[in-house]
């Protein structure tokens, strides 16, 4: 009898793409040779707001060697359809932000393509630009509609007046977070060509093949089957490759259509950082009513986000941020008002956390402020208010299962020796002649996994597992592997469900011509939502195999034999399943009431750091974090995600400063936009908490974004613990700490 394969879920198998990635054999988009291709370059606006008066081509330049694509060449709509369709693919008239694309040039030589940009003169009629949330709200100039607002939301629970009238104390705070650049190491890039039958194909670095597909259908006015989008190996994305690839694919495909040649459009670092989306800057205001024993009685929260010049996904970033604005805490009376506004800066977009790092930053610092006001330890304050099974959220959602908030908090407090260190550091900091101050800070958060509200129902995602007639098993999904290991996790889920060893499973390249639409690779939904579909599809195939062969054959030869019957003359037997709405999940998108998310993941973090008394540099010495992700399908990859996300957030808190002036990011280089290096990054102790979710594959919940949500407020608390100063904005650069000492006239 064949030996049953060992369990495949819950073990840290090596990434299935490791051999390719470790030898240089993995092909990212710029690694493909496209014979006869043109290299494209993009002419961009140099003003923030106004009109293009005239575009002049240098008559002495050899334009006959070039192909040029302009707005007039677009066969369909000149806009990039995402949630709205306000963003032109190429602008011919109105200028809404710097770095907006005007036209595309192509030449067989990449350097020559860029050279051409110097020989096109653009004349503008400039208008005053709106560059801040405050100016936009004040309607300094009207950029959109009647009020510059992309989206406005309101959540109400209970009655604020009731809460405030019972309050022993009322605590107010205002918190600010800036832009953040995704800084994936592979820049954006796309190739495009037109097949003989007129099909437009784009191939590139992207997260969401079907988003690009949807946008291209409109731009090129083609039936869906005449557009094909293929995912190349993608060198990191973090949300940065959610919506912008539709723009680049549109540009590359337009030039391919115009010239009749294949086109490669690869951004360099400067262009990537200056032109593409960032995390939304935000201002969050809290007013909280509390009882003297530390119970939250009312939370009145206002959130403002800077959406940039076009809508992209600002409305949904705002929505997620708004839904997380209370923190994972019980409070009977809540009002959250929020809006996203337009400014003349490049559109902000998706970035790991998607609005949550902004609002959790404020919520957690507000908890610290409340604790200070009441003279209660902030850990104790969190204990008294944190969600448990049975808690009701601000939208009226009852948490029925898998609530690991307190477990994460207690584990993190214990493992980091938080309480002991607080005392030790207080002593250390009082000492004379010490070169540093020490501090430790803590934060707790939740992260709703999957699309918000009825989003998953609307997406109605599909995924499949198929048996090929030669005995191969393939997972088919549109979810892309951005480095997070989606392909490996799908392999494990399918193998485990079928009771096979992982090397018998393959994952198809996400290619809109080959895979069903599993929706976008975003929202911490890939493992939880699509992984569940893969599990269900694999179960279906398993049942069919058992019916045909009596059991699941354990090797290729056995599978091939079973395939003969199952495929019945077809090349494959495909078991495809679709997301089904759980009956007890309801969501009212008008009132913002109901189950905002199927489930939440939870995490706690302790950040242990020191501040140099001479230079005011902050060095993080140690991070301890406990994260409830339901079930780690692959613990090694899960920890990798957690450490990577945490580090990105440490950068957000301490280093990363996108210097926007006049609507431009002035430091669009890795040289002066500093992200954490090997030596900035502390050792991290990661503890996985597994409170299973009944609707996730083997109990798994979302995990990818949460690590980004909570380190920043923990850093701020730790810096306060070290220096005695509260910072209400990040990044905490050394000069900011220095300025506080000067302001307080306190000698270091």
């Amino acid at each position, binding site marked *: 009898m064949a030996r049953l394969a060992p369990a495949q879920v819950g073990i840290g198998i090596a990434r299935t793409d490791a*051999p390719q990635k470790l030898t240089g054999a993995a092909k990212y988009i710029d690694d493909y040779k496209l014979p006869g291709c043109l290299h494209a370059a993009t002419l961009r606006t140099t003003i923030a707001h106004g009109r293009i008066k005239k575009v002049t081509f240098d008559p002495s330049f050899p334009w006959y060697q070039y192909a040029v694509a302009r707005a007039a060449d677009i066969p369909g709509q000149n806009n990039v359809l995402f949630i709205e369709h306000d963003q032109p693919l190429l602008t011919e008239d109105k200028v809404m932000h710097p770095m907006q694309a005007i036209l595309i040039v192509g030449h067989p030589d990449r350097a020559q393509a860029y050279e051409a940009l110097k020989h096109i003169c653009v004349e503008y009629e400039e208008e005053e630009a709106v560059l801040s949330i405050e100016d936009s709200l004040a309607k300094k100039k009207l950029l959109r509609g009647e009020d510059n607002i992309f989206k406005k939301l309101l959540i109400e629970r209970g009655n604020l007046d009731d809460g405030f009238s019972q309050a022993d104390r009322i605590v107010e705070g205002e918190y600010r977070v800036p832009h953040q650049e995704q800084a994936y190491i592979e820049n954006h890039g796309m190739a495009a060509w037109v097949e003989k039958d007129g099909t437009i194909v784009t191939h590139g670095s992207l997260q969401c093949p079907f988003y690009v597909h949807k946008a291209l259908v409109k731009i090129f006015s083609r039936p869906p089957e005449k557009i094909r989008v293929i995912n190349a190996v993608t060198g990191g994305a973090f949300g940065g490759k959610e919506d912008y690839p539709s723009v680049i694919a549109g540009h590359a495909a337009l030039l391919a259509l115009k010239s009749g040649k294949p086109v490669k459009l690869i951004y360099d670092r400067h262009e990537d950082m200056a032109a593409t989306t960032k995390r939304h800057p935000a201002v969050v205001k809290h007013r909280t009513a509390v009882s003297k024993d530390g119970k939250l009685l009312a939370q009145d929260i206002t959130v403002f986000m800077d959406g940039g010049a076009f809508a992209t996904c600002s409305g949904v970033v705002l929505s997620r941020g708004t839904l997380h604005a209370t923190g994972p805490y019980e409070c009977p009376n809540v009002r959250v008002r929020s809006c996203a506004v337009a400014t003349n800066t490049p559109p902000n977009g998706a970035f790991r956390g998607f609005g949550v790092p902004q609002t959790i930053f404020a919520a957690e610092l507000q908890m610290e402020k409340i604790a200070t006001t009441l003279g209660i330890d902030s850990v104790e304050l969190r204990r008294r208010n944190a969600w448990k099974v049975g808690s009701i959220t601000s939208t009226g959602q009852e948490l029925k299962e898998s609530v690991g908030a307190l477990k994460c908090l207690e584990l993190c407090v214990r493992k980091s020796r938080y309480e002991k260190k607080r005392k030790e550091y207080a002593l250390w900091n009082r000492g004379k002649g010490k070169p540093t101050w020490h501090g430790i800070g803590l934060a707790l958060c939740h992260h709703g996994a999957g699309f918000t509200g009825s989003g998953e129902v609307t997406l109605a995602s599909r995924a499949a597992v198929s048996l090929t007639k030669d005995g191969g098993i393939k997972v088919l999904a549109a979810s892309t592997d951005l480095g997070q290991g989606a392909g490996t996790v799908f392999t494990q889920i399918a193998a485990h469900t079928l009771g096979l060893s992982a090397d018998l499973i393959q994952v198809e390249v996400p290619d809109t011509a080959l895979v069903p639409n599993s929706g976008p690779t975003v929202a911490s939904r890939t493992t939880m939502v699509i992984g569940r579909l893969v599990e269900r599809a694999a179960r279906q195939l398993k049942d069919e195999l058992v019916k045909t062969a009596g059991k699941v054959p354990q090797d290729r030869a056995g599978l091939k034999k079973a395939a003969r019957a199952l495929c019945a003359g077809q090349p494959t037997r495909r078991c495809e399943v679709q997301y089904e709405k759980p009956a007890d999940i309801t969501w009212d998108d008008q009132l913002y009431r109901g189950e905002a998310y199927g489930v939440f993941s939870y995490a706690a973090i302790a950040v242990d750091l020191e501040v140099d008394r001479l230079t005011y540099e902050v060095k993080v010495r140690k991070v301890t974090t406990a994260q409830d992700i339901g079930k780690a399908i692959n613990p090694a990859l899960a920890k990798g995600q957690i450490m990577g996300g945490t580090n990105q957030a440490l950068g957000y808190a301490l280093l990363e400063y996108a210097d926007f002036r006049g609507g431009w990011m002035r430091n669009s280089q890795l040289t002066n936009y500093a992200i954490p*290096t090997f030596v900035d990054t502390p050792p991290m102790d990661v503890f996985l908490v597994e409170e299973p979710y009944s609707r996730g594959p083997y109990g798994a919940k979302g995990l990818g974004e949460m690590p980004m949500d909570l380190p920043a407020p923990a850093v701020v608390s730790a810096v306060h613990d070290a220096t005695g100063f509260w910072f209400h904005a990040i990044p905490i650069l050394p000069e900011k700490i220095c300025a506080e000492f000067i302001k307080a006239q306190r000698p270091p």
Partner: protein
Amino acid sequence: MIPFTVNGKKRNYQGPAFKRLLDVLREDFGLAGTKEGCGEGECGACTVLLDGKPVTSCLIPVCQVQGRKVETVESLGRPGRLNPLQKSFAEHAGAQCGFCTPGILMTASRLKKTDPEAVRLGLAGHLCRCTGYAHIVESVTKAPRSRKR
């Protein structure tokens, strides 16, 4: 014509003398394992060995390598036959998106000391946005010392 050795093979480059070594490797010699991340020597993704020392190939005009030895990630193992360092990266989840990985492997393959602190310092010229670095450090420290380059 500029002669030099790439991965043990004698090569002759013909073309502009100031073309970046990175582009010559990728475009002229088809060695696409070496990646461009920033084009200004900051991220380390394009790191290759020049006479055994790690250099960022985006900052090296090809005329500077005349008569010298260049080694790229393709000189290490192949997908079916990873070298011990590469195997260790596979086992310890040292790569995620993989874009910074070839450059890191080249520098790591020449590190003399492999205690965690030395590895962090030795690899400080490389940026990785996915891993938070710990798994990379572990991959290097746990690779067998007598690894074949």
